[in-house]
């Protein structure tokens, strides 16, 4: 459809459709000559003209509308028997059709109706309408149409002669257009009708399936010839590889449509919504031509519209507030689409007020979705993700347009259903960006091929975040147990582990102690899937599974690998649901503990402080866990401090504080730090390692020492409980001077989030 470049897409479609309609019209008119007065034919002609009239009115082609309007009236009367066909009326109708064709050609040539006049034909049609026989041959019209190469069958055409297919050379039918236009290489410029054909979508789908098969066969052949000696064969295989790839891309392209198909409706949505909300909105669209599979386009429509409505309704501020904030009164909404690493990225950005993470946190707590302690541990990005939680809505006031309390979670579900992801970024006062990542197509997916218990499985790359390989020695240390749930501390964050062998009830064949973890993400939950081996990455063609296998909840499909073997495609969502109990899942969401539904008073953070000693801190005093590089430590006087999010925090080394003595010969590269913040003050407590977050398992005893408030039994081990107040005072003697004491709840710390 290159010819349509620069031409409005809608007009292009209109032209294609109208040309088809006109061809039908020609056939109908010829038929009509033979069977004058056939209601059926007149009805068909009427519908055709009616369709053109409707669209031309919509597209503001006034001449076209005027002529089809009277034509329609005439046809209606003929159809309903108020007028009878005479040769005169046939002529008039043909003249009208010719003029319509002229107009369409003019529109196709330069997007306007050009200088084609319709008054004379309108006149003739009107006369026919009034029952007057117009003079059969209007000389003016005939002269003007002399240049028209379109052969319209008239009575003289023998009946058995097929309708002459109109080879519309747009230039020739425009006698008024200057002569240099034909020089514009008409041979290169096919008319719209010739440049595109309509193809049954089923046919495209079946082509797509066959190409999928071809890709599989290609994979098999390429694999088999990969280590062969036959050079000729290898070369042929490479050629096949190349052709198959190109063919795959080509067929996929036939199903591709520019995202503009969706976007075209949005300016209106934005305008109306902006008007309803009393907001001025400038809509900017970047990357309209970005294409994606038509089936996906359909699935993205509703989520995208929802995001746009959200952005206008909640994202952008009122003109008054914008002025007050020093922004232009007109809000800007930017839609951006582009391809990135085999995916289509669609962004909806507004330059509005942004999302207040603290408000999100407060609301999540308010609605009982998370506890105060949980949100205190979450990063800003994690807090923003809460708006995708079912039942969450950030709109303070429920407006009539959106914010009905359902929304973002549905958007997320819909996007994930097509294998996409959604993320949100927001800067308070600056705006919000929602980013959708959508696969190009569903039929062929890039996958990681893995082995488990001697069987081969495929995991869609879309849910794969990273791979972690641990050798036996590290695995023994780095895989820990939290209430029977194995976890791995990945860069300081606890990752619940799921052994694929456990999920599938099979025996691992790996006995060297090595552990391979595929870090997966599903429905916002991260977990590590322990597999035996990674074999390869491959583009796999998704084959449907019988319902009986699907209902097992562990497989989303099957595929055939390069060596011809069948591999099941793991259903990452299903496995996550199956393997992670709701507690684990929830805990995973705040990523720092593995179980979070208990009340926060009983919860402890257990940290190693060196020399084999461990201390427990009430979780409520933990604002955040961080690591700092050693060289981030600065000295103020004799005190060590670190800069943290714009604040200077005094550093307290627990080993020194509790007189453990240096636990290592040299200081490690990175310091593990527990941040405790209250109001605008905070301290950074350095520990050796974070061991766990647990519930209190035993009673607190009085056995105590300096700096401790007692001890607690945690999993058959006595752990000392840190006197947090004492420790904080050691770091910052003035800490409690102007704020509430520890224990008033970490909620005090939340306003600090707002400043971030």
């Amino acid at each position: 459809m290159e010819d349509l470049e620069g031409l409005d897409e809608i007009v292009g479609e209109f032209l294609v459709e109208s040309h088809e309609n006109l061809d039908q019209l020609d056939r109908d008119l010829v038929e009509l000559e033979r069977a004058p007065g056939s209601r059926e034919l007149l009805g068909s002609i009427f519908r055709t003209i009616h369709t053109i009239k409707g669209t031309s009115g919509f597209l503001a082609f006034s001449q076209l509308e005027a002529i089809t309007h009277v034509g329609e009236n005439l046809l209606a009367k003929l159809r309903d028997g108020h007028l009878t066909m005479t040769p005169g009326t046939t002529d008039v109708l043909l003249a009208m059709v010719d003029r319509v064709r002229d107009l369409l050609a003019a529109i196709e040539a330069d997007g306007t109706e050009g200088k084609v006049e319709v008054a004379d034909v309108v006149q003739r049609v009107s006369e026919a309408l009034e029952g007057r026989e117009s003079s059969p041959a209007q000389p003016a019209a005939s002269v003007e149409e002399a240049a028209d190469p379109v052969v319209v069958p008239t009575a003289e055409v023998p009946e058995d002669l097929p309708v002459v297919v109109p080879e519309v050379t747009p230039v020739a039918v425009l006698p008024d257009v200057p002569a240099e236009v034909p020089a514009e290489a008409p041979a290169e410029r096919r008319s719209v009708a010739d440049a595109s054909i309509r193809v049954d979508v089923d046919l495209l789908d079946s082509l797509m399936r066959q190409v999928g098969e071809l890709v599989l066969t290609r994979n098999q052949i390429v694999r088999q010839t990969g280590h062969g000696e036959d050079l000729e064969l290898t070369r042929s295989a490479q050629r096949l590889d190349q052709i198959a790839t190109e063919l795959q891309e080509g067929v996929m392209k036939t199903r591709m449509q520019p995202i503009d198909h969706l976007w075209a409706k949005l300016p209106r949505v934005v305008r109306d919504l902006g008007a309803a909300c009393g907001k001025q909105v400038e809509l900017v669209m970047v990357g309209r031509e970005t294409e994606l599979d038509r089936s996906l386009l359909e699935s993205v429509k509703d989520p995208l519209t929802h995001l746009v409505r959200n952005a206008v309704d909640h994202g952008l501020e009122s003109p008054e507030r914008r002025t007050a904030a020093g922004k232009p009164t007109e809000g800007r909404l930017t839609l951006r689409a582009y391809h990135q690493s085999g995916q289509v990225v669609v962004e909806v950005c507004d330059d509005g007020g942004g999302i207040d993470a603290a408000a999100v946190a407060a609301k999540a707590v308010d609605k009982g979705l998370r506890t105060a302690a949980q949100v205190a541990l979450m990063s800003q990005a994690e807090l923003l993700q809460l708006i995708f939680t079912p039942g969450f809505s950030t709109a303070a006031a429920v407006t009539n347009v959106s914010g009905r309390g359902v929304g973002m979670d549905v958007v997320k579900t819909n996007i994930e259903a097509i294998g996409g992801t959604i993320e949100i970024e927001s800067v308070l006062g600056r705006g919000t960006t929602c980013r959708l990542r959508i696969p190009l197509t569903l039929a062929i997916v890039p996958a990681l091929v893995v082995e488990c218990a001697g069987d081969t499985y495929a995991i869609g790359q879309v849910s794969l975040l990273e791979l972690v390989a641990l050798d036996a020695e590290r695995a023994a240390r780095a895989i820990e147990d939290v209430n029977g749930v194995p976890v791995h501390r990945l860069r300081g964050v606890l990752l619940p582990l799921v052994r694929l062998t456990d999920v599938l009830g099979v025996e691992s064949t790996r006995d060297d102690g090595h552990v391979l973890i595929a870090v997966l993400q599903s429905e916002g939950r991260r977990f590590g899937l322990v597999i035996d081996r990674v074999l390869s990455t491959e583009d796999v063609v998704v084959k449907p599974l019988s319902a009986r296998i699907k209902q097992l909840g562990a497989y989303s499909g099957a595929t055939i690998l390069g060596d011809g073997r069948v591999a099941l495609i793991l259903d990452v969502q299903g496995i996550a649901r199956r393997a992670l109990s709701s507690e684990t899942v929830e805990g995973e969401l705040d990523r720092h503990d593995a179980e979070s539904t208990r009340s926060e008073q009983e919860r402890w953070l257990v940290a190693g402080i060196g020399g084999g000693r461990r201390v427990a801190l009430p979780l409520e005093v933990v604002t955040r866990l961080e690591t700092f590089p050693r060289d981030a430590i600065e000295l103020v006087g004799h005190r060590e401090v670190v800069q943290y999010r714009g604040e200077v925090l005094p550093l307290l080394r627990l080993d020194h504080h509790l007189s453990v003595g240096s636990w290592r010969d040299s200081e490690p590269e990175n310091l593990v730090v527990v941040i405790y913040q209250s109001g605008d003050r905070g301290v950074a407590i350095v520990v050796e390692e974070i061991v766990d977050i647990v519930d209190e398992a035993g009673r607190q005893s009085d056995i105590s020492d300096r700096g401790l408030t007692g001890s607690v039994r945690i999993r058959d081990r006595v752990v000392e409980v840190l006197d947090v107040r004492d420790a904080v005072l050691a770091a910052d003697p003035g800490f409690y001077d102007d704020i509430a004491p520890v224990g008033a709840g970490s909620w005090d710390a939340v306003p600090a989030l707002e400043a971030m």
Partner: protein
Amino acid sequence: MTFTLDERLYGVRVESVQEVLRGLPRARVPLAPPTMAGLINLRGQVLSAVDLRLQLGLPAAAPGRDHMLVVIRVAGETLALVVDSIGSVVDVDVDQFEPPPDTLDPAFRELLLGAYKLDSTLLLALDVDRAVAA
């Protein structure tokens, strides 16, 4: 269309049979019931294979033993039945037919339409829909 399972002759209507194959490598499906004998690659199509022995409550085949696959179409789905060996296509008369004897194990009996009394042996007619649905 006849085949044997544990030395006995079984049959399905020939119209439902798409083809007969020598055993293909099967990918097992963990979590699936044991009668699900795995997935096979039939010229790019992924089919489920049903272990008819287990389905009919017969002893499992000796490991490593040769087997054959009968590819059938049932209720819009194509699947493969794992059988011991393939017999011939035989014509049967309606008057040779008898419903399955009452003395059969009910679970087994349910999967049979009945028996045809051939000259030399009994041909057990399999109720394919039921045999693969269980």
